[in-house]
């Protein structure tokens, strides 16, 4: 699996688990898997294929 351009070994896990492993707060993340935006409410049930290409944008505060 490629996440933000880097290789990871995640297999058969949900997007939520991946975010937890990467210490990312799901509330502040916009996630794209294989080019499609995954809504936050689907993070828990969305199982990411091991060959998926994932892009995660974790917003930080300030504006």
């Amino acid at each position, binding site marked *: 699996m490629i996440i933000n351009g880097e290789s990871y070994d995640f297999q058969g896990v949900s997007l939520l688990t991946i975010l937890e492993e990467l210490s990312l707060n799901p509330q502040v993340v916009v996630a794209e898997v294989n080019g499609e935006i995954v*809504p936050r409410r689907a993070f828990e049930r969305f199982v990411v294929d091991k060959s998926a290409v994932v892009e995660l944008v974790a917003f930080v505060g300030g504006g």
Partner: protein
Amino acid sequence: MITKEVYKRHLIERHGEQVQAKLENASVGIAGLGGLGSNIALALARLGIRRLILVDFDCVELSNVNRQAYFLKHIGMPKTIALNTLIKEVNPFVEVVLHHKRVTRENALSLFEDLDVLVEAFDEPASKAALIETMLIRSKIPLVAASGMAGSLSSNTIVTTKMRERFYLCGDKRTDSQDVNGLMVPRVLVAASHQANMVLRLLLGEKTV
């Protein structure tokens, strides 16, 4: 008395007829009227944009004046109304639509329809993510968002990145306002200017950063 015709002619002299022909037909939405949104709105008013849709639920506080466009006399006023008075002092011919309310996943699409570009200018990271996710899934409007402009790191760490089709992100992407000495005007203005310039580029038909 500066008439609309005189104002328009002066903008054409400064910016050129081709640029102004595009800007005078452009509508831009701004979600959040804090340090980013208030300054971006004034920049777009100076450019001579046709229409601004401005949304914020908050009122001006003393703690905003360190970086936001507001004056002390605006304290206590809704940010929408205070910003509208500033915009009108700069360019009285912009059509301004004000919504003094919180943007949610439910109302975002109806607040920001028929726009050329939407600017995400919230403070809270969860609000930023919710708006971007909702609009990427449910609309086709180009989005210009911001993440990472707190503190006093180098200005040169703030960049504009095209994250995907229709989604541009301005900032250093990492410096959280909770982790450093809060938000200070220089870097907030750098990020706001990145956003305003990306909006300008999109309105002129330029899709690269």
